[in-house]
């Protein structure tokens, strides 16, 4: 399952860091951050609960980049 989320982040490198953090989160099969469109597209593992996984993705992203936001 794939879902797209709106994000807010200031710099391109920070967006890359968010992408890495999201990809390391359990339940995420693949995540891409589109800095120019300010969007994150997440493909979830089978059987993962997107809502719960995204909460985790959000807090993992906050660790690497304090100023970022994912609008869930």
């Amino acid at each position, binding site marked *: 399952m794939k879902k797209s989320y709106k994000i807010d982040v*200031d*710099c*391109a*490198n920070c967006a*890359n*860091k968010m*992408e*890495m953090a999201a990809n390391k989160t359990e339940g995420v099969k693949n995540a*891409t951050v*589109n*800095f*120019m*469109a300010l*969007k994150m*597209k997440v493909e979830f593992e089978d059987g993962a609960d997107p809502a719960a996984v995204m909460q985790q993705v959000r807090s993992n992203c906050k*660790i*690497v*980049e*304090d*100023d970022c936001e994912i609008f869930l």
Partner: protein
Amino acid sequence: MTKLTENLNKKQKNLLLRVIAAAVMLVVLHLLPLEDYPVLRFLLFMIPYLTVGYDILRKAWKGILNHQVFDECFLMAVATIGAMILGEYSEGVAVMLFYQIGELFQSIAVGKSRRSISELMDIRPDYANLEQDGEVEKVDPDEVEVGSIIVIRPGEKVPIDGIVVEGSSSLNTSALTGESLPRDVKPGDEIISGSVNMSGLLRVETTKEFDESTASKILELVENAGERKAKSEQFISKFARWYTPAVCYSALALAVLGPLVSILVFHRTSDLALWSDWIYRALTFLVISCPCAIVVSVPLSFFGGIGGASNQGILIKGSNFMETLANVKYIVMDKTGTITKGNFEVTAVHDEREHNIDDAHMLELAALAESHSSHPIASSIRRAYEADGAILDKGRVTDVQEVSGKGVIAAVDALQVAAGNLKLMKMLGVACEACRSVGTIVYVASRSEAADPENGQPAGEGSVQAGGSWEYLGHIVISDEIKPGAADAIRQMKQNGIVKAVMLTGDITSMAESVAREVGIDEVHAELLPEDKVTLVEKLLAEKKAAASPKATLAFVGDGINDAPVLAIADLGIAMGALGSDAAIEAADVVLMDDDPAKIVKAMRIARKCIRIVNENIWFAIGVKFACLLLGALGIANMWLAIFADVGVMVLCVLNSVRALFVKGM
């Protein structure tokens, strides 16, 4: 000033004020004679430092708490605090100040670029005028169901794809296709969302939901293009991951090993001046270690290139395809719909002069004879006849007989007219020469209806009425017309680095070869079945692999209707004339909204420009950074130079990236 600031958001305005305030304070403090008051001097310099840098220091602290040491904020914090400790107050403040100017500039440039793309892609409709029970109501286009009637007034955007039921107008499709010529529509015509109604009121029956409509699909496609990352983007994010820690460790090594080597090898005495000199060099390293300039300029270039291209009616579905497109060396094109128009046209009418009949008259007889047929050949003859303003009077035609696989025989006025292929002529016993022109040939013969019944009674099928002997009148050549820009486009492709242009077609060889000669194709494969096209493209891919450099790519251009498998196996699939065709948009990597072959060349040029900008940025930024690192290590570059290099490189890279957006005149 108001004009300058009106496009800034709150965060940017705030930062701008802080930067200005800190810059003013820094200048003032420089002028004040504070040398004799060290404590006061330190405290006074702390004011601009904290004004401009407090958020960086806070973020750096949070980074440490979160075990994310190597972020830009931490580096800037260490570099500036280090400078302050060494007593280089103005440098510490300046580094922070310029770093923030760089951040501000970058954020303004990115915001501006986002806005210009959305202006260029101004095809998103805000509302639809829904007609219900005779009343027109403005609604969200999302709420309009398939089959509803919507009203589009002059000046309004078409919100949803549909079919015109009432009214006629011309539509401006330039935002979709880049084509400035308006398109006329009348009842029964399909209209496509995103185009603008220019003149008359239209009532339209919707055929799709808003989300499925062309405008929404295109916008989604352009927005998502950034998700398919190019190799250079992946390279840059890997580089950034590796670069920052590497520079940090080198800085540490410089601070420790530098003095040690000086003492042990060059027998310098270990004193404070020596250590602080090397620490200063190390801090200079940290200033240069921020990778943001390179990291932002790459997606910014791709974003601009993709946005600018879509404004020209060229949709590139990902940054990776931009790279592939820039390296196309082999181009394989389908004939029908790509090089030729795909509609059959009468291209020549050859009369037999000795029978005293002229072209127009023969065409008229043929058109009348074929007037009841629905075959594409028949309709092309009718079209050719009507093109001169003549009106086909079907009342003159009686007694039509279709001779299956051969043609048609009909009574026109007082004549019997036969129009068909050579087999028909043979059947009727008409002597005629086979025409050598390329295309489908329709031979025409006639005889007077009231004639000797014993003469010329044809054998075979059909009870063709008795009449005089058949007289050969001439023939009509019908072929698929070559697009006007095709030859020019192929010539330009070759000028732009295409090594080989190949044409594939299901048509007969003679016709294919003639088209190929006319437009300048290098290699033709004709009489192919759809699955043959796949095998051929696979073969060409292997040939390309053997002959060209590994980066060279092969593009297949088709109309996207039944060549999805070929579009998929080629390195790059380009679909043409895709406006309104979802299947084509789905299957291809690059979608040309109209069917002008010149767009292929344009797409290649846009991609080349974009990739060139990306490469310029990467090598320029990396080059300058390494040069500064070297000069910094040798103690030649000071912190001022380092920060100017860092911010300057970023500004130049960002400005260069913005260039990718301007593709109009290409």
